[in-house]
């Protein structure tokens, strides 16, 4: 029927009025680098795998995870998770328990026998990986995925490097370690153990390898001369932990002093307690705030009865007694002598003063530059010798397992590019999604879930794992605490809050787009985006 003129109007007619012409600024969708991803030495897409885990898609989450890191069950235990340190949620309530979720996913993969993605078709190229620690394992995995043949050699009888011989079992159960290593080996890796490479150049030539990845770690415990200390009483921490791992623990006695302030010192002291020491005392020259060891490790150690003598250095042995000197911090925070001494009854002294790398195998490679005890590398982890790459503790790094895993990945990509004659240009990184860009009001209140800790009594006497895993409920809860900083997670806020219906919803996984015919540029979508994935830009005139 004809409508009465002007008084009665037909549906849809307002769409002729393009209010977009009012706009002086336009909203645009952006992606920003989440601080967790930014901080992860292994380059994990943490937000990406948390996103999958949020909806219970654990296998999908694990698959996103192993795109970058083949050792989630291990890293979920030993990583010191810089991701959590940088997590924006820490400024809302507490950081997301990323590491715990990673471990949950890693354990789930082992339990369900999920296999790693199949390698690409064989490229016919051969790579020698020297050292089966985290860097070597990671490189092996990524190289295999790229279709390159890998020979993985290690001087020890079993694979794992420092993961096996440096990290006590109560932090990393061997079954977990074995399972994740086996999964990599199952990709078709030629494994050679009990084989110490003496000459890289010769080994490469003899095996006709197209490239070499050097990941020999830092296996030599640094020692200092302790006057009147005999070898029976003094052992370095690396050797100590290695022997424990080999089921050949040295007899240390009841009173053990550990000298040093890093994580290895804590590992040594806690291990000593488990071996029967009634006293395990750490002597460290500075105070707790300046201790390089990670705070939660310190917390756990103290909880297990380990004690610490802050601001003290070991001076000498006086018979059965260890003489230590008290220190004080000067204005710059450096320890200074006080001239005051003290004595400790000591059956054994464990030196945890850092580790050095044995680089004798490079003596034939004149081009390889060694500086400060480590091999110098390019951003793609290549040494100055073409085709020879290095990573992990043998290269300049923070010397953590996670950094090593990251090195392995970068080196594999570098090697692949080198083998293809290409340059592996570093990918462009988005700007970091800082907390000021978020609208945190929208996130539900939820403090993080604590991983259960074994009762102290139990863990002082055996090597059972100290920190338990999350239940599925907790893991799901924890995953859902992720703020998805800087990347749209399809919360529909922009779609909902636009007064002009100028946001088009493209469907699950497809995100949104603006209809600039009608967007007036009010900016509500930007203001109300929880994760800061929209920004206003001046309108082009």
């Amino acid at each position: 029927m004809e409508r009465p003129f002007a008084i009665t109007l037909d549906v849809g007619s307002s769409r002729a009025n393009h209010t977009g012409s009012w706009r002086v600024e336009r909203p645009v969708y952006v992606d920003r680098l989440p601080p967790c991803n930014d901080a992860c030495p292994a380059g994990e897409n943490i937000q990406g795998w948390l996103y999958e885990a949020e909806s219970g898609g654990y296998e999908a989450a694990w698959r996103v995870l192993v795109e970058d890191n083949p050792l989630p069950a291990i890293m979920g235990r030993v990583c010191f998770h810089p991701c959590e340190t940088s997590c924006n949620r820490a400024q809302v309530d507490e950081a997301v328990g990323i590491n715990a979720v990673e471990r949950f996913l890693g354990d789930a993969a082992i339990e369900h026998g999920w296999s790693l993605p199949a390698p690409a078709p064989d490229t016919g190229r051969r790579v020698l990986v020297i050292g089966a620690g985290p860097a070597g394992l990671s490189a092996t995995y990524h190289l295999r995925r790229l279709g390159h043949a890998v020979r993985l050699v290690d001087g020890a009888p079993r694979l794992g490097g420092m993961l096996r011989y440096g990290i006590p079992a109560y932090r990393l159960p061997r079954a977990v370690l074995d399972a994740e290593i086996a999964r990599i080996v199952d990709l078709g890796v030629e494994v050679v153990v009990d084989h110490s490479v003496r000459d890289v150049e010769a080994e490469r030539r003899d095996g006709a390898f197209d490239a070499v990845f050097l990941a020999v770690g830092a296996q030599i415990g640094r020692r200092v001369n302790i006057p009147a200390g005999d070898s029976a009483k003094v052992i370095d921490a690396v050797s100590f932990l290695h022997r424990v791992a080999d089921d050949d623990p040295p007899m240390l006695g009841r009173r053990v002093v550990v000298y040093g302030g890093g994580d290895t010192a804590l590992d040594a002291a806690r291990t000593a307690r488990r071996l029967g020491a009634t006293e395990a005392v750490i002597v460290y020259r500075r105070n707790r705030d300046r201790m390089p060891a990670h705070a939660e490790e310190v917390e756990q150690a103290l909880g297990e009865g380990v004690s610490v003598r802050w601001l003290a250095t070991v001076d000498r042995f006086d018979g059965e007694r260890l003489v230590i000197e008290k220190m004080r911090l000067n204005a710059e925070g450096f320890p200074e002598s006080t001239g005051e001494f003290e004595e400790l009854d000591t059956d054994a002294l464990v030196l945890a003063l850092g580790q050095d790398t044995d680089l004798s195998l490079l003596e034939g490679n004149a081009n390889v530059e060694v500086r400060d005890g480590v091999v110098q590398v390019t951003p793609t982890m290549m040494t100055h010798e073409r085709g020879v790459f290095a990573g992990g503790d043998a290269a300049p790094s923070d010397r953590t397992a996670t950094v090593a895993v990251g090195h392995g990945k970068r080196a594999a990509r570098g090697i692949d590019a080198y083998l293809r004659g290409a340059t592996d240009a570093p990918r462009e990184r988005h700007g970091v999604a800082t907390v000021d860009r978020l609208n945190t009001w929208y996130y539900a209140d939820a403090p993080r879930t604590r991983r259960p800790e074994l009762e102290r009594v139990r863990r002082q006497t055996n090597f059972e794992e100290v920190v338990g895993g999350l239940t599925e409920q907790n893991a799901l809860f924890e995953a859902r605490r992720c703020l998805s900083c800087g990347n749209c997670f399809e919360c529909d806020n922009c779609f909902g809050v636009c007064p002009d219906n100028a946001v088009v919803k493209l469907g699950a996984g497809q995100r949104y787009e603006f209809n600039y015919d009608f967007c007036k540029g009010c900016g509500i979508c930007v203001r109300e985006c929880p994760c800061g994935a929209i920004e206003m830009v001046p309108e082009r005139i």
Partner: protein
Amino acid sequence: MSHDPTDAPALDQRVHFYQVGSFAVGNRLLNADDRTVQSSAQRTNSIDSGHRACQGCGEALGARYALDAAMRATNGRLLAVNATGCLEVFSTPYPETSWRIPWLHSLFGNAPAVATGVSAAMRVKGREDVRVVAQAGDGGTVDIGFGTLSGMFERNDDVLFICYDNEGYMNTGVQRSAATPPAARTATTDVVGDEPGNPFGQGKDLPRIAMAHDIPYVATATVADLHDLERKVERAMSLRGARYLHVFVPCPLGWGAASNETIHLARLAQSTGLFPVFEAERGVVTNVLPIRRWSPVEEYLTLQRRYAHLVGPRGRPDIVARLQAIADANVVRYGLLPDERNDGEDD
């Protein structure tokens, strides 16, 4: 351990936490039934693109929120009556209308009565599946439409009346209404004299006046809490008789606020206690929306030029204190800050 998707709902019920929970418009983690109408690409868009509301208009947003929810609740069997005002003017300038639903505008002060007539027509024709919503701004509700509204309440006519409260006559150039808060500057309450801005009066609290009629349902809501608003519309449409929904809709133009602050301001109005969000049935308060993160009124005032004379170095802390007292009184009256708060979801 379960990763089978068929187990997910059961697990979801145990894990009562959904990232953005029910605070954001949508949430893929929620069951479909718990998602908002606004998160659906199939929503009605009762008020369509191309309307001439100012940038960041809270009323345009509130109207779409409420009417789309009513459309879902009535399965699309809805008729709307509109009072004169911003909403009417910006939505239907000849030859363009933004309404995708049947819509009738008569006068400024008679929307409740017109809606009564529409509702009576549906009843007499045996088409009681078709429901009626009437809507007006605060002027059309608390001032000029007050008489017809009270009549509609008293007769308990089957109409949901929605007031979009932006605290003044914005369409005519920002003059004071009975809903304009004390101390606010409008074109007819200038910032001169000892009591700059709108004088402190007794207020005209329409939700409580509506409650005094003992009608089946009275609720307040803001554009800052969509889930709450939609749930209230749904509840209202599940009942028969006169129902009243008072929606707080910031006006960037009239309040002198940035156009992107609309929802933020609505949130602050609620979280200061200045605008209590609650619902009542048959004259008795049945539910309040607790303040999730309390804010002092100054935080709210600072963002609006209509209060610029109150804050800053040459401000009026004495007047700010009086406004704070109003907010505090609301907190007490409605119990907006319970001592113990549950973590996590607002379940």
